[in-house]
């Protein structure tokens, strides 16, 4: 089977359309199971009380936010190297979901930090690098929005995504050293007591639910993007009938 066939927007459009309901369905089912485990099955933490339950949303969102940036940079790089339109559209389609995940991670982190650390915001290395990751997403999205010519937007944003991807680890370690050099970090997620297996199971289910949601949402956005870009192509007119 020739997979490269699906690198053309025309043949990927119906494939994406068939994939979206499946991923969305998986996301909803896993999400319900995960939320049931998170809210009812998992026991109350003896140190943090019920406040810890936000991690069932927080951890998957933080995980996705970083992963999506790398996937986005990957597709942007492919688009730049091979001049494939679909790869660049894929990168554009991923960015809003990634920004959303970063925002959710920051927001839920604040909700968790208030009862646990006693502060909405702490300049911890993870929080700070997540915030900067959010800024990187915003920069990418505004660059794409600011350039009218789609092909130029593709390439310019690809260069930015790649530069950002090189910088993400540098930023993470610099912020980590910055904090530890200033003072011993007063709060740490890694020192939290090890999790009960039911909690871990709930979290993994939620992670897969977030994966499925991200894929479904990005594919839906990709379909819109394809239609918008190819609106003058014959096959789009036929689809519209």
């Amino acid at each position, binding site marked *: 089977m020739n997979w490269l066939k699906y690198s053309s927007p025309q043949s990927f459009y119906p494939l994406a359309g068939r994939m979206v309901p499946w991923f969305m369905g998986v996301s909803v089912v896993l999400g319900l199971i995960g939320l049931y485990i998170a809210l009812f099955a998992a026991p109350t933490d003896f140190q943090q009380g019920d406040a810890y339950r936000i991690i069932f949303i927080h951890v998957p969102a933080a995980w996705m936010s970083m992963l999506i940036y790398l996937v986005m940079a990957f597709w942007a790089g492919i688009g730049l190297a091979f001049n494939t339109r679909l790869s660049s559209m894929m990168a554009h389609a991923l960015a809003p979901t990634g920004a959303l995940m970063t925002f959710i991670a920051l927001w839920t982190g604040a909700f968790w930090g208030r009862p646990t650390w006693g502060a909405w915001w702490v300049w911890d290395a993870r929080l700070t690098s997540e915030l900067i990751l959010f800024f990187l997403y915003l920069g990418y999205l*505004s660059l794409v929005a*600011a350039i009218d010519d789609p092909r130029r937007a593709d390439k*310019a944003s690809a260069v930015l995504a790649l530069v950002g991807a090189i910088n993400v680890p*540098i*930023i993470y370690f610099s912020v980590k050293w910055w904090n530890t050099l200033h003072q011993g970090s007063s709060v740490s997620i890694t020192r939290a007591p090890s999790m009960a297996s039911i909690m871990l199971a709930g979290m993994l289910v939620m992670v897969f639910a977030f994966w499925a949601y991200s894929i479904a949402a990005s594919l839906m956005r990709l379909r819109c993007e394809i239609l918008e870009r190819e609106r003058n192509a014959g096959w789009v007119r036929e689809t519209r009938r």
Partner: protein
Amino acid sequence: MAATAAAACGAVVARDLLIAARRRSDVLTTFFFFVIVVSLFPLGVGPEPDTLREIAPGVVWVSALLAAMLSLARMFGADYADGTLEQVVLTAQPLTLLVLSKVLAHWLTTGLPLVLMAPLLGLQFDLPGDALVVLMIALLVGTPALSLIGAVGAALTLGVRGGGALTALLVLPLYVPVLVFGAGAVTASATAMGSVGHLSLLGAMSLVALVFAPWATAMALRISLE
């Protein structure tokens, strides 16, 4: 070939420096922007010497970041507007080297003045003598990275709507590591730790930027001029 490339690079640097010398106000605006921003902080924070000494490294570095960022539009802007940039891209010389020359000229006209001015501003913040030396060295090692990384942002936003604010959004997050270690070096010099580690990392960042940034900038310029 190597000789002609070197000659072309020299010509680019000489031309940009000449333009800067003829339009002195452009260079001075950035410079005084830096001075004014640094001087505003004591007015906002209060004149206690202890507080000022503590915030001085961060204030000077953040102001340097902003000044470097504001001057980015000048790096390619005028050349893009009058078509010179297109000719530069079309020459037979490697574009990465020509870009590097433009970045060098930019640093000489914006980065270097900040380095020279920083000790005087540090005095306003009651920094001790050895901290002033470290501040100067840190700026000397770190500001090239600001010009290099900034060049990528400047090239990407050429002729784009909302250029200036957009450049800030693209470039400032990428400046974070330089800020962390630049300001950290001065703070660390007051402790037993010393500032060598910070300065080495700052130098490493400038070198990494020196390798990747001209290449990315050249690519971005080609995209912008397509």
